[in-house]
């Protein structure tokens, strides 16, 4: 079951997938294209996590699962580990990759429409558009991480940020569910479901409050 695939094939497949969804299927609706790409990534992450956790003991902790993503999972996918992991110990993790393999061969030229290959850019408007174009390529790995973590029992929302091109930061936020105390009390199901990207100007996160009677099995354990 451990076969390898040519990297150029993977690159071509991803580039083609992003351009099909963004330019053909959902031509003027980048939000929908992003959601579809992220959903594909979700399924792939789900399958991959099941496959790569087969040989190793199970996880007793959320932190261990995240460390698995940073080390073993990332090295199976990209032959390197995550360079930096930061957490605020309240359920948010930042995974930083200084040279993300799928962005390594990309550069942005804000002067041409097609985003051709030259390095300089200065105007903030064009920079924004270029960043958006590149950021579409990050929805797939975000979906992969989200799928892998949900299979390991950690529902979360993942978003990405590109500071300088081959480096990217992935932000993982766990969905926090509080208990249903009584029907009259409101449950804060705080989830930052973000499908839009940060660019230089950080977008604010949406907080969705929903009545949610379901209690996760881990939460049951800690009762």
């Amino acid at each position, binding site marked *: *079951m451990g076969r390898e695939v040519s990297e150029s094939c993977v690159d071509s497949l991803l580039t083609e997938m992003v351009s099909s969804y963004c330019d053909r299927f959902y031509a003027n609706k980048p939000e929908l294209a992003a959601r579809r790409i992220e959903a594909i990534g979700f*399924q792939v992450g*789900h*399958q991959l*996590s*099941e*496959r790569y*956790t*087969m040989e*190793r*003991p*199970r*996880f*007793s902790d959320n932190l261990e699962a995240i460390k698995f993503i940073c080390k073993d999972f990332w090295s199976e996918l990209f032959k390197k580990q995550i360079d930096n992991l930061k957490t605020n110990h309240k359920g948010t993790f930042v995974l930083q990759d200084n040279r993300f393999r799928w962005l390594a061969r990309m550069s942005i030229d804000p002067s041409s429409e097609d985003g051709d290959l030259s390095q300089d850019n200065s105007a903030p408007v064009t920079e924004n558009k270029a960043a958006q174009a590149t950021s579409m390529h990050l929805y797939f790995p975000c979906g992969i991480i989200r799928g892998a973590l949900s*299979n*390991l*029992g950690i529902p979360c929302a993942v978003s990405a940020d590109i500071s300088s091109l081959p480096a990217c930061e992935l932000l993982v936020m766990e969905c926090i569910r509080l208990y249903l105390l009584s029907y009259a009390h409101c449950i804060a199901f705080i989830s930052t479901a973000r499908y839009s990207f940060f660019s230089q100007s950080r977008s604010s996160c949406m907080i969705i409050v929903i009545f949610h009677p379901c209690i996760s*099995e881990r939460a049951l*354990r800690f009762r």
Partner: protein
Amino acid sequence: MHFQAEESEVPMATTACFIIVSRNDIPIYETELGSAAKREDAAQLHQFVLHAALDVVQDLAWTTSAMFLKAIDRFNDLVVSVYVTAGHTRFMLLHDSRSDDGIKSFFQEVHELYIKTLLNPLYLPGSRITSSHFDTKVRGLGRKYL
């Protein structure tokens, strides 16, 4: 023809019932393995015992990071053994006392088959496994290891 049974191998009818339960506590696959004559009430009894053992599995699964939890529950002379994957899918086997190694190998092979089923993009995770190929393979593994 006259078969001579060795001292250590006493041929006897073996009963075994195997189910796969997804993380949402929905059974996605069930089968009767073993060579005993199938009785109607026995099948329901087996399922009942296995489902009742789910609570025990739930408690035990969090205490250890191993995948193979050995005999976790008994009912008369039948024993329940469980194997939990990282995605919290439980493989449960109800059997009369058998060697642990054989059961562990059986679980590992079924785990591989299960991953192959998951890799099918048309398979919805958490739904019933209806493939007859999977069924045939699991029965073959049951005959081989149990």
